[in-house]
């Protein structure tokens, strides 16, 4: 088995790969529900608690413990299924997925096997160019999360070379919904974009449903991407008639950007192998955010024989049709409709709205506007400075610790004339650095526009006097020349002036 230390593998140019091969994807998304308690016991689910402080006989798999299903988790599962246009099973059971690995102390994970609670659905995903791709959903089933392991003694905290491992079972038993797509075909060279857009749309949907924190960086939303290539159809052959190639499953893909990059990388890696006439090994691949490559994990083999059987400690889940319809009544408006409504309310252009979607900021802007910001102000910060940073650092905009309330406050400080744009940026820096809310940061850093018109007027007079030639141009009607004077005034005021006001003053004096 090779490990992360293996040398970079050969890849081919992406466009070339697409000339010869047709990519097919399958995406598995695990979503941690935000229930107060675990799937089968009353232990709390809060993130970041002391190790092994949220465990009990049930989630530790102690002898004689009996699991009982969390009612809210079942409701969330059904609501997710309905929002994905799935059918809801009239009767279904849990199953034991048996394996020997210390992240589950029971030596099995309670999951669902051939009786998922939801099946046969779809999600329409809007792409960057405004077109729609329909992702067919195979199933959504209920299961539980596993514990977290720390590997000790290896060079880099990896399982390879570790001497022993330490396990925290706080996460073991937290409700998970696994959402599995059917093979996604026909995306062609847009496959990586479709993958990213699907996970983004799913995240938006789950957030609107209020069933999960959907924080990819904390692992409450995780994506495994299966990728395979098949030759392009030739002659009269339909692409659908070309058999699917061998797939690899890339795990550990923890941001929208990584989903896109990982799929793209696997396409170029598969193509290089197939070009050589070699075969793809069906295996798990690990995604490395820093280097942008995948490396081989374990090969799928006999170890994948999970000996599923119906869970004897739990009785079947049989939601009545009345319950299902009641839950259907609680669904939020469909994301597409919602986006159109919000775009209209906010007065954004199509392009602006697309930027907002690409930044994954629709819900954030909605909350920011609800907190008192102008739609234009909310958009400016989330899709401007924050999206830019997120892009550069390969993170998502939510990861900076900046909340909608922060942005609304920042927007208010600018509108009230306390901060100008460059000061607001500095304040945002401070918020990101954890220095507090915008007003606190502005106070602590002494950022405030000089409201003293006398000081500003004096600066304007000084600058006009020192730049007589430029001032004359403005007097002669070359208004754009005023820009140089405004710059001088701002410098004179050490940046602590309202540039708009400076401009007004200069033009008034030189008219």
């Amino acid at each position, binding site marked *: 088995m090779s490990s992360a230390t293996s040398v970079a593998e050969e890849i081919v140019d992406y466009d070339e790969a697409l000339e010869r091969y047709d990519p097919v994807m399958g995406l598995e998304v695990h979503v941690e529900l935000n229930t107060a308690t675990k799937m089968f016991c009353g232990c*709390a689910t809060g993130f970041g608690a002391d190790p092994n*402080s949220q465990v009990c006989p049930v989630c530790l798999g102690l002898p004689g413990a009996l699991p009982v299903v969390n009612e809210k988790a079942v409701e969330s599962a059904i609501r997710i299924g309905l929002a994905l246009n799935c059918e809801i*099973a009239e*009767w279904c059971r849990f199953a034991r997925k048996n394996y020997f690995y210390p992240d589950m102390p029971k030596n099995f994970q309670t999951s669902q096997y051939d009786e998922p609670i939801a099946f046969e659905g779809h999600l329409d995903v809007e792409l960057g160019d405004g077109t729609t791709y329909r992702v067919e959903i195979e199933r959504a089933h209920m299961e539980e999360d596993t514990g977290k392991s720390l590997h000790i003694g290896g060079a880099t905290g990896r399982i390879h070379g570790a*001497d022993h*491992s330490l396990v925290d079972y706080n996460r073991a038993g937290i409700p998970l919904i696994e959402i599995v797509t059917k093979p996604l075909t026909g995306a062609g060279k847009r496959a990586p974009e479709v993958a990213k857009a699907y996970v983004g749309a799913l995240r938006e949907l789950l957030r609107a449903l209020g069933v999960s924190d959907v924080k990819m960086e904390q692992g409450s939303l995780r994506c495994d991407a299966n990728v395979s290539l098949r030759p392009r159809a030739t002659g009269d052959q339909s692409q659908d008639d070309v058999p699917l190639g061998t797939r690899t499953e890339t795990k550990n893909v923890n941001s929208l950007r990584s989903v896109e990059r990982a799929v793209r990388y696997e396409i170029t890696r598969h193509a290089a192998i197939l070009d050589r006439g070699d075969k793809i090994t069906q295996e798990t691949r690990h995604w490395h955010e820093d280097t942008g490559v995948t490396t081989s994990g374990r090969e799928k083999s006999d170890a994948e024989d999970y000996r*599923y059987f*119906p*869970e004897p400690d739990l009785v*079947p889940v049989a939601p009545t049709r009345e319950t299902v319809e009641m839950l259907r009544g609680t669904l939020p408006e469909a994301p597409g409709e919602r986006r159109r409504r919000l775009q209209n309310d906010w007065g954004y252009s199509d392009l602006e709205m697309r930027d907002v979607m690409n930044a994954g900021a629709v819900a954030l802007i909605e909350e920011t506007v609800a907190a008192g910001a102008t739609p234009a102000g909310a958009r400016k910060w989330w899709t401007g400075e924050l999206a830019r940073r997120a892009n550069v650092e390969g993170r998502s905009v939510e990861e900076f610790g900046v909340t909608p309330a922060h942005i609304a406050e920042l927007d208010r400080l600018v509108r009230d004339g306390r901060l100008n744009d460059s000061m607001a940026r500095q304040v945002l820096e401070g918020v990101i650095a954890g220095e507090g809310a915008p007003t606190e940061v502005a106070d602590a850093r002494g950022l405030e526009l000089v409201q003293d018109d006398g000081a500003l007027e004096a600066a304007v007079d000084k600058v006009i006097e020192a730049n007589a030639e430029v001032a004359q141009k403005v007097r002669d009607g070359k208004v754009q020349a005023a820009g140089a004077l405004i710059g001088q005034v701002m410098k004179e005021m050490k940046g602590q002036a309202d540039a708009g006001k400076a401009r007004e003053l200069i033009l008034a004096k030189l008219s």
Partner: protein
Amino acid sequence: MPPEHARGRFVVREAPRLAPMSALSRDDVAHLAGLARIDLSDAELDRMVGELGVILESVAKVQEVAADEIEPMSHPLPLTNVTRPDEVRPSLGAEAALAAAPEKEQQRFSVPRILDED
């Protein structure tokens, strides 16, 4: 990954039936004990070979009468939808949880190396 899903009721597809049992060997039991991390003495091994053999024979008898039209039963009681409200109940506490752990470190369960060296 499951090949397909059930629509509505459980369909017998890969029902976990035991193959007609060849007798369980002493090696089988020792292997299972190892997987389950149960330390058995030689005398205990001998006894378990006999006792497990009886259980397997009994199951084999049930399989003789279980015709295809009889659905496998996963629970003896005709109950559905047994749930609990989503309300937090006290956990054990880390100290109690770790009390029976053979090894512990950093308030975590310490387990032997997971992967064999290549």
